[in-house]
């Protein structure tokens, strides 16, 4: 149960003394709702960095507001309605579970534009955007597979949604490629943000022999658990988590939303906004790979960077055949790469991963 939801009005740049005659023009108001606190050091932190970049870019012309720690579900609908009533022109809803609330509220406010992260439902005033995190997971899997000595890699999943399953598959495929003996142990935490639970999950995985911990949850608690355990490596998730470098954190996947947010806010200011679907990866700069620390051997680092460059240039797709599904049936033929439709709805493990996806 969380009562920490607060409505914080971000300070406008007026205090800088730059505002002189700009007040005559109506400000564009941009709202953000976050699933965790802005201080989570991961997912929400990066969305908030994007918001701050928007403020920096537009100065007085744009006002931003945000609400943090909004539970997914009916509460989100209430917060969104309030934001729209308060005159927001554009609202970014930054978690998968806000999908239906966003669609519902958008239907009631046709003049307000909505942008929903990582979802798949759109309408005339709802765009979706997401990042191809699985590209980063491929690089991560490569390093993890090369570095593990116990051949056991622990993975803390949040919810069994395509986004997370894609990450598990991508990491597994590339870990397996460099280390055929590798085994994944997966724990579903059923939360995006609960440091105590994430720490317990990491400890359970470490106790069962994992010496690499990958996480798809937002806090830095697994990093702290790995650090305490000693000989375990981790990767920053959503944010660089550099305070845990060079070990346990050996690299990271960094979300960079700022260019997209600035772009979309400009479209609203100019009146050219349209409902779109954006899914960018390493190439477009939406997904970044954090510095690979010196704990990683030089040749592994070089291979990882080469893999990153190949993905960025489009020369290599992380889901390239031959690949089979977990049940042994054929998925991709030699040289064939997965289409976006299959990836967006991914609900199966690839061959070699044990365990079932909770339904």
């Amino acid at each position, binding site marked *: *149960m*969380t*009562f*920490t939801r*607060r409505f914080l009005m971000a300070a406008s740049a007026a205090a800088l003394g730059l505002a002189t005659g700009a007040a005559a023009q109506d400000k564009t108001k941009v709202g953000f709702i976050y699933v965790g*606190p802005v*201080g*989570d*050091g991961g997912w929400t932190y990066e969305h908030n960095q994007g918001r701050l970049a928007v403020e920096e870019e537009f100065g007085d012309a744009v006002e931003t507001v945000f609400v943090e*720690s909004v539970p997914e579900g009916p509460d989100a609908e209430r917060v969104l309605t309030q934001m729209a009533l308060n005159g927001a022109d554009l609202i970014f809803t930054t978690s998968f579970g806000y999908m239906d609330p966003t669609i519902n509220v958008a239907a009631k406010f046709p003049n307000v534009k909505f942008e929903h992260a990582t979802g798949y439902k759109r309408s005339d005033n709802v765009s979706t955007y997401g990042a191809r995190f699985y590209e980063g997971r491929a690089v991560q899997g490569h390093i993890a597979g090369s570095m593990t000595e116990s051949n056991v890699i*622990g993975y803390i999943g949040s919810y069994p949604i395509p986004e997370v399953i894609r990450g598990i598959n991508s990491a597994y495929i590339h870990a397996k490629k460099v280390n055929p003996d590798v085994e994944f*142990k*997966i*724990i*579903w935490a*059923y939360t995006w*943000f*609960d*440091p*105590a*639970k994430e*720490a*317990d*999950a990491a*400890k*359970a*995985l470490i*106790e*069962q*022999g*994992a010496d690499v911990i990958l996480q798809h949850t937002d*806090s*830095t*608690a697994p990093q*702290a*658990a790995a650090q*305490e355990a000693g000989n375990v490596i981790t990767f920053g998730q959503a944010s660089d988590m550099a*305070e845990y470098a060079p070990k346990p954190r050996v690299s990271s996947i960094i979300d960079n939303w700022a260019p997209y947010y600035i772009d979309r806010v400009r479209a609203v200011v100019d009146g050219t906004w349209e409902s779109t679907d954006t899914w960018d990866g390493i190439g477009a700069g939406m997904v970044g790979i954090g510095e690979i620390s010196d704990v990683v051997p030089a040749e592994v680092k070089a291979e990882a960077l080469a893999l990153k460059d190949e993905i960025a240039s489009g020369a290599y797709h992380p889901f390239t055949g031959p690949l089979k599904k977990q049940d042994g049936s054929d998925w991709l033929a030699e040289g064939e790469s997965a289409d976006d439709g299959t990836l967006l709805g991914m609900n199966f493990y690839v061959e070699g991963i*044990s*365990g*079932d996806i*909770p*339904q």
Partner: protein
Amino acid sequence: MDLTAISPTLLIASLMVAATPLLLAALGELIVERAGVLNLGVEGMMITGAICGFAISVETGSPYLGLVFAAIGGALLSLLFALLTQLVLANQVASGLALTLFGLGLSALLGQSYVGVKPPSMARLDLPGLSDLPFVGRVLFSHDPVLYFGIALTIATWAFLKFTRAGLILRAVGENHTAAHALGYKVVRVRILAILFGGACAGLGGAYISLIRVPQWTEGMTAGIGWIALALVVFASWKPLRVLLGAYLFGGLSVLQLNLQAAGLAVPVEYLAMSPYIITILVLVLMSADKSRAPASLGRIFHASS
């Protein structure tokens, strides 16, 4: 599925760690309720203790000083509840809920500059010889001092309620405050002291999470443990040793379900995730089938004139 991957030694060791915050908070609430006061603010006092302890130990570099101030922080917050319910006779349920809301907000405010900071770590107790024993050494003799304190506190609470005169007075106040008053006992004073003890225990439990179990600070990190502690007191029939059992059972099952998942047990995850709650309730309900009942004056407002 590979159940051999689960090491019983490590499992027991980590269940004791997972249970300790719950145990501390529940023991504090048990004393409060035995004195006839229902304080629903456990969650708020825990999270306040968590940030007070975290902040002080980061600033001073001493985790022990942090724990002391966590207890003080929790007790200070509970003092507010004591003033409201014992002196101005406010409703206990409403005041307790308000205390939780207030504690969550206050801790978020206090903790703003401590997000992402690493606290100084607390050394495990290392008893030469004993800690090296197989199985027993890891399970019993290589924990942090707070964990032992929790067990000692359980026994002390039990002995206090059962054998001491002060414990008898506390129970008398909780059972029938009018009679206790007529006998000349200071009902309000006893209750305020009990509330302060409850606050200190909850604060300590919170700090155990932020300093030892996780260890780091994030908003709302107690994530409902305070509510579970409240429920545990009721299901444990207001008996300290049953609180210990319930806390270990709950802690054990929450750790075990993660281990079973990692070992690939073919049971749907949702069942595993709800199992700690269900089994803890079941066991404690079965045990409370004897004639134990709530303190008779629980939640009732006392005024000497009535």
